[in-house]
């Protein structure tokens, strides 16, 4: 009898023991954030829904916002500290020459469907990313100077990455590179169909990842609902498995004004990327509606005025080609820069919640910002001196004319859907009028504006903005390198058109291969000096990151790198009482 009772007790405890043993065998990451309380749901509004749930095809921020919660990466950039830290790789060593990274993976980790994770999944993932037939968007990140990164499995939980040359941003490359489940995707990869996998209508059971959440439901055009991943590999200081939230829902709300209204009503509990105007409109309501607004300081976005310096316009767009004689003269660009009231832009467009810029690096990028470069102050006399030196003159009615006597006038294209850039263009227009320049603002549909800049080159000047994907200089290479895919002022440049662009190419390549931060900083400071002098883009302002959240949301630490508000969704929790649903 007694024996029977003991056996019964053992049988009852066996699953628990197995579970505890499994947890004990799992290489879990212990976080240092404030321990939270399990439960609750969170709703986040986004401008658009992902077009696919396939990480291979995803690059836009809205899609990465959702997928980033479902997928895990080997090394992750902590958005608060801007430094890389262990994720699925619990540790790594780097060879002396900086080319070989040996990663030790966490043991006992499972995908969200319960299947085990090991080095074979890592190998498979990078095989897919590097396969040119797949055309993954991550491919270019893993090709350095034309050569691919080599990936080898050392044992079940060890992987070696060999870079073709020393690569300063190697650790940061891994951030956001989702580890794919080999057990679900290998078959389709071998059949050449992996690009078709995981559309939005995929049943949740067919998708698995190593992120804090897993897919629960998709209502196309309306919302994506994620549920807690019971196998997530992080625990808090008290040993509680993360995430705390039971559900994370992304709702589609296309305009910011509509997002503000829904946030006020409590339909969503977080709002990202508030404009300064909406921030001011909401400020007075914080106490009454129990939310809190945060100003995280200047982000990584930079807005600029860009002149068309492409050289494929002769014969095709003769009127623009004629005006390029002005645009190509650095004194003309410097004069334009000197005439622009950046303080006015910061004040009127961003309500002083922005930073005026001298280069593309904002003061929010603490590690790389060159504080020695002064922000240009508006000076019409200096602008006139520069224009006079460049051979321009003024008629009696203050109209500026070029050396051939033609009045200086040009159009400024701007995306009609971006209210702040439209305001910037209007202010620039008024500033240039004081110099006698007839600039007229032409709002066009957003994609049309991008198409003109990237493809047709049918524009004279444009006010637009870019957001750096990371604080590290590496993501800017596409813009700064002569043959970069987004070398906006002169697309499709095969070789540097000017000595300063040649110097930029050399410096960017050098910083890429320099491991020491101080040396790299020096090189990048010089890059910024060149940009401030030559002004291929006339940098204007970088808006602050303005966000908001319900006041009882715990561990809410907005950052200036995407995703600003839910980069640590696995640590978010509700202080009692629970969030409204």
């Amino acid at each position, binding site marked *: 009898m007694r024996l029977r009772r003991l056996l019964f007790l053992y049988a009852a405890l066996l699953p628990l023991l197995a579970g505890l043993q499994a947890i004990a065998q799992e290489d879990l990451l212990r976080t240092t954030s404030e321990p939270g309380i399990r439960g609750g749901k969170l709703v986040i509004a986004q401008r658009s829904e992902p077009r696919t749930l396939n990480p291979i095809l995803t690059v836009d921020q809205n899609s990465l916002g959702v997928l980033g919660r479902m997928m895990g990466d080997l090394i992750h950039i902590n958005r608060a500290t801007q430094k890389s830290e262990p994720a699925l790789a619990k540790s790594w060593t780097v060879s002396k020459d900086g080319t070989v990274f040996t990663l030790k993976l966490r043991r006992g980790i499972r995908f969200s469907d319960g299947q085990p994770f090991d080095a074979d999944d890592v190998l498979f993932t990078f095989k897919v990313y590097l396969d040119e037939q797949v055309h993954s968007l991550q491919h270019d990140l893993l090709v350095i100077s034309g050569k691919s990164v080599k990936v080898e499995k050392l044992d079940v939980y060890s992987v070696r990455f060999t870079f073709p040359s020393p690569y300063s941003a190697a650790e940061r490359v891994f951030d956001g590179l989702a580890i794919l489940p080999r057990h679900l995707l290998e078959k389709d990869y071998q059949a050449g169909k992996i690009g078709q996998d995981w559309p939005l209508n995929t049943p949740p059971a067919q998708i698995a990842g190593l992120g804090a959440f897993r897919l629960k439901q998709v209502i196309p055009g309306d919302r994506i609902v994620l549920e807690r991943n019971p196998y997530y590999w992080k625990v808090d200081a008290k040993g509680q498995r993360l995430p705390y939230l039971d559900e994370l829902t992304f709702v589609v709300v296309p305009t*910011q*004004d509509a997002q*503000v*209204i829904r946030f006020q009503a409590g339909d969503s509990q977080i709002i990202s990327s508030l*404009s300064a*105007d*909406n921030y*001011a*409109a909401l400020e007075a309501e914080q106490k009454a509606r129990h939310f809190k607004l945060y100003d995280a300081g200047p982000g990584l976005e930079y807005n600029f005025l860009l002149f068309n310096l492409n050289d494929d316009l002769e014969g095709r767009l003769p*009127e*623009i080609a004629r005006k390029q004689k002005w645009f190509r003269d650095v004194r003309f660009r410097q004069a334009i820069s000197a005439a622009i*009231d950046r303080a*006015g832009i910061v*004040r*009127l467009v961003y*309500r*002083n919640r922005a930073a005026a810029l001298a280069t593309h690096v904002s003061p929010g990028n603490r590690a790389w910002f060159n504080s020695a470069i002064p922000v240009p102050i508006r000076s019409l006399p200096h602008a006139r001196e520069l224009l006079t030196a460049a051979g321009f003159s003024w008629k009696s009615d203050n109209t500026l004319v070029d050396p051939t006597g033609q009045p200086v006038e040009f*159009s400024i*294209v701007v995306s*009609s859907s971006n*209210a702040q850039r*439209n*305001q910037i*263009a*209007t*202010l620039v*227009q*008024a500033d240039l*009028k004081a110099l006698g320049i007839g600039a*007229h*603002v*032409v*709002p*066009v*549909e957003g994609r*049309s504006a991008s198409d003109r800049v990237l493809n047709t080159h*049918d*524009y*004279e000047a444009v006010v637009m903005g870019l957001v750096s994907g990371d604080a590290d200089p590496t993501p800017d290479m596409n813009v700064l390198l002569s043959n970069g895919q987004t070398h906006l002022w002169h697309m499709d440049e095969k070789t540097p058109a000017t000595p300063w662009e040649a110097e930029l190419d050399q410096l960017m390549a050098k910083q890429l291969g320099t491991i020491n931060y101080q040396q790299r900083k020096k090189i990048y400071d010089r890059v910024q000096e060149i940009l401030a002098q030559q002004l291929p883009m006339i940098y204007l302002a970088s808006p602050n990151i303005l966000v908001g959240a319900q006041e009882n949301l715990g561990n809410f630490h907005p950052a200036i790198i995407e995703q600003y508000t839910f980069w640590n969704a696995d640590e978010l929790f509700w202080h009692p009482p629970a969030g409204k649903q």
Partner: protein
Amino acid sequence: MNRQSSLSRRDPPLRSGFFTRFRLSWAIWFLVGVHAVVVLAGFIAPYSFETQEREHPFAPPTRLHFVDCAGKFHFRPFVYVTKAAENALDQYQQDCSQPAGIEFFPKGDRYTILGTFSSTRHLFGVPAPTNLFLMGTDGFGRDQFSRLLYGGQVSLFAGFVAAAFSAFTGLLLGGIAGMYGGRVDDVAMRFAEIFITIPWFYLLIAVRAFLPLQISPVTAFLLVVSVIGIVGWSRPARLVRGVILSARERNFVLAARGFGASNAYLLRRHLMPLTFRVLLTQMAVLIPQFILAEVILSFLGLGIGEPFPSWGNMLAQAQQYHVLVSYWWMLLPGLAPVPVFLAYHSLAETLQERIKSNF
């Protein structure tokens, strides 16, 4: 037609005749007055439409005072200098130590009237550093009252020009269709029906999208107005055709034809003048429609570009949430077309009644 009954219809009862004449005269005088004001916008407005007071974004309407902070009464209205509060850019405080009386015919921004007369004298204003923003300012510190007057030039004359274009085109094509009849009439009217069915809004978006970037905002705007006018010719054309069709069989027309008058002569000398009343009424109906079309286009960013104001692009700023909830004066341009439309409507109704009473 019964001559007796037509005579009796020319003599409506005295009360309704007076009412009709009153309605007609108030509508006409009001519209003349409004158009005169917008033509003289440069003189009447205290500021140019593009002057930016960057220290006063979203300033509320300036308060006019007759009694100062010390309680003393002044016959001449005056204002105080306003300054933005330190931590809130759109909160303003008056400085009682700096009053400034309203001045008449002060010097200010240079303007041109009808492209010929240029001056710097304005009807009224205040000396610097005070400002007189009767309807507040927008996000760039531009005086909304001044922009409303200048914007009226664009909106009102867009409607007028487009309607005139429509009427002229309609008169021409409708006259030819009615005069010649037969196949000419068939082709012209089928053409008119096509134009009636064209979704004018999407056509305008397409036209605007195809315009080159290098043309000035004024030129782009005139082109858009022309398109509105061209698209709208079909209704006047059908009306004119109807009048011509019924009038061409009248005795005096037949008599003129009998004396050898050509079709062109008959059209020009005898038939088209009969359409003028109908066209005038039609214009009174079309003008507000085309004003509204321009306002809608500008509201959507497809009309005249910055910095030129129109009632539509001034109202467009109110689309933004923070403007809608915080700055009520930004909605005032939406009220400006209302009395104008009422006047045109009254005019059209009165003209229609007169036409009916004369037939």
